[in-house]
């Protein structure tokens, strides 16, 4: 996939909910972990701003290793929350960091910001729906 095609694919999915709610609840139900869903969402929401800011700071100022490490650190919780698009963007930024391609990482930042905000928004809504907050 070329960069422009990939960027278009990130743009084209912006209208979709960032979290695959059915998959997330399904996985939690299957694992017998439904009682910790709210705690899990709250933990993600507490950590996500720092994780996101670390990626931004790394892309804007630091070296390739820092970009790779910061993107990887946010990718893990995004993967667990079934925020596939967010995890995919972070993987792209991590790969860009690995390849020393700071420009590519920088190009992806607006998509990351948009997706991060949408993910956080959806998780807040899920908490409200579960009677929390």
């Amino acid at each position: 996939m070329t960069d422009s095609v990939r960027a278009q694919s990130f743009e084209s999915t912006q209208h979709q909910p960032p979290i695959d709610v059915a998959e997330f609840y399904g996985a939690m139900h299957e694992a017998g972990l439904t009682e910790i869903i709210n705690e899990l969402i709250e933990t993600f929401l507490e950590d996500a701003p720092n994780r996101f800011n670390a990626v931004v700071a790394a892309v804007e100022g630091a070296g390739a290793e820092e970009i790779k490490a910061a993107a990887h650190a946010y990718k893990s919780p995004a993967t667990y929350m079934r925020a596939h698009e967010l995890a995919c963007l972070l993987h792209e930024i991590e790969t860009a960091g690995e390849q020393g391609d700071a420009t590519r990482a920088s190009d992806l930042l607006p998509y990351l910001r948009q997706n991060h905000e949408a993910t956080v928004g959806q998780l807040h809504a899920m908490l409200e729906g579960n009677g929390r907050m």
Partner: protein
Amino acid sequence: MRILIADDDRVARLLLKTTLESFGHEVIEAGDGAEAWSRYKEEAVRLLVSDWMMPGLNGLELCRAVRNHGRTPYTYIIMLTVLGGKGSYLQAMDAGADDFIRKPLDSDELAARVRVAERILGLHTEVRQLEALLPICSYCKKIRDERNSWHAIETYVQQRTDTSFSHGICPECYETQIEPQLRSISGPAA
């Protein structure tokens, strides 16, 4: 079983801890590799489940530190990572990991891997017992097991190994035990 988990991602740790506790295990948490190493030295853990990429001491370095420490009984190590590929797998095994699980965790897969870990740790314990000094009765040569009951040496070994016994008579016993009996049956020589 007491399990140490090391992951800098709190979401992953919460999931892992809750899942392992639901299997009936006691879980100790560490937020990075350095903390995990410090907790490992303080606590008697049999299983370490560690993330690969962590700030400071990463999973591979933690793995090497545990193996170099050489603690007994053996510590089983499962590496947890979103990294894929044969290269990563081999790197983890070379560092001393026993198993490898991909993120996001599947609870059934984790349950199966932990059961394998328990089985292997059980075998390690039995091997250590066999290698250690065995309490043996000075008269009948029965062996006392870990539950304080006494067993014939054949039973004890057969229950713990693949060994089968083929019964024979050594030359010394033949001379002292068998020959006198043969002589008594056949009567005094004319």
